[in-house]
């Protein structure tokens, strides 16, 4: 599996990472090198191996349906560049 220049631009856009035209070719090379490295896994026969979902066999932990959190709007918005009345403020996004 390898990626072309168009796929590199597309992935960058989906990840919202600005990639200049000059960086596309080097990134394409790096990504293909990584993919080639991962592809070595394809040589292992896993036909009869169950997918591993955790290192030690365990069931998913569950929580009871009780309210244990909240009432900390000040803290929640503390890192936001801009806030008003505990709302996050972002550049206008509207359909």
């Amino acid at each position, binding site marked *: 599996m390898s990626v072309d220049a168009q796929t590199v631009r597309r992935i960058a856009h989906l990840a*919202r990472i600005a990639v200049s035209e000059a960086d596309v070719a080097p990134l394409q090379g790096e990504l293909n090198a990584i993919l080639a490295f991962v592809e070595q896994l394809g040589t292992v026969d896993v036909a009869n191996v169950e997918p591993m979902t955790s290192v030690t066999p365990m069931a*998913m932990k569950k929580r009871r*349906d009780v309210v244990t959190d*909240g009432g900390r709007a000040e803290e929640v918005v503390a890192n936001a560049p801009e806030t008003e009345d*505990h709302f996050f403020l*972002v550049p*206008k996004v509207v359909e």
Partner: protein
Amino acid sequence: MNAPVNPKKLIKGGLHDWEVVIGMEIHAQVTSRSKLFSGASTAFGAEPNDNVSLVDAAMPGMLPVINEECVAQAVRTGLGLKAKINLRSVFDRKNYFYPDLPQGYQISQYKDPIVGEGEVLVDLSDGESITVGIERLHLEQDAGKSLHDQNPTQSFVDLNRSGVALMEIVSRPDLRSSEEARAYVTKLRTILRYLGTCDGDMEKGSLRADVNVSVRKPGNPLGTRCEIKNVNSIRFIGQAIETEARRQIAIIEDGGTIDQETRLFDPGKGETRSMRSKEEAHDYRYFPDPDLLPLEFDQAYVDGLAEGLPELPDAKKARFVSEFGLSAYDAGVLVAERASADYYEAVARGRDGKAAANWVINELFGRLNKEGKGIEETPVSADQLGQIVDLIGEGVISGKIAKDLFEIVWTEGGSPREVVAARGMKQVTDAGAIEAAVDEIIARNPDKVVQAREKPTLLGWFVGQTMKATGGKANPAAVNALLKAKLGIE
């Protein structure tokens, strides 16, 4: 999917008739105290960002822990949809960027949902019913809410809804008209409310629909579909489908083709329009969420939940028909809300089921509708209405007086039996008293007596006069019989 085409459901185009094909994704907010993966409250209407934990705000290092009640609610819903429950399901990350999605992904279920195929029986207004296939139901997180009208250059983001559990219920493309679509959502809402797994409050956004619409010539393969996002009332669902189907027909009949896209319905303008920003977002790059193990439980857990389920609307309706002798239509009206059905049963128990149904549907529901009240707010209790039905059954009051009595109990309250006694509303069954009234009317109207012998329908006039003379308290059957005898009418 390829049920016989019903010509009545087709839409007339300029060139020929078109069949509309609809499938729906319903997002139903799970009824729970806390969120799907955090301990913050789900309560509606809190101050901005007050019901938010650091998990919901996607602070670094926070880990999701699943709410066991949300899992139980999804299983209950699956059982209510007669669906396959998957003992093992997997949570995936659905990746996209939006300001009200701080994680940058929604935790959802993709390949392995908690609930598989099921079905919903939907009654239509013409008495027909259809079975709508359910493809799957999965659990996922809701996003936050953006307000765009507070400021000219900025959007305000509130994460109170972020992380609240949703059930996405996906139907098969089994619906063939806007009426069927509306009936389907109505029925699904009823089932959810019976189960207590979603309150179905569309005004608060507890139930929202994405509607997939395509059109085709009857018998042809499926056309290209458009998805209308986030329609939030049953009426708008109907309007959006009609509008979108006609838009597609016009394009195809003009020689064009439909682009598969996401659209938005604008009820004010009565049109759907393209949401171009959603186009590329369809590449969600799902992958299993590494923060969450697979969700597993055993059949005994499912069986335990099944035992706790209430009687569901289809079963209740069938029982009302067999136990109380109701028509399918009346039974359907009564079971539409669990509270209405419970009220009716309390009135009908030990009484004439049909009479009880008439009073509940015609008088009580009619009056509640008029005042814009729900069954929970009725001033006339089931016990009071039951007494009114008893008083008619015992012949103590006539049906006409009963309506006056209902009005008094509605506005003033009190025991119907005591009201009847205190206000002298008892029906006059004393033959002597009725006869005296009848004799007087006959004596005063000799011309009408002659006419009535020619034209027996005039009997109604005499009945009316007698009722008037007795203040409406004469037993109508006794009056009728007596008048017929005296006037010599058969």
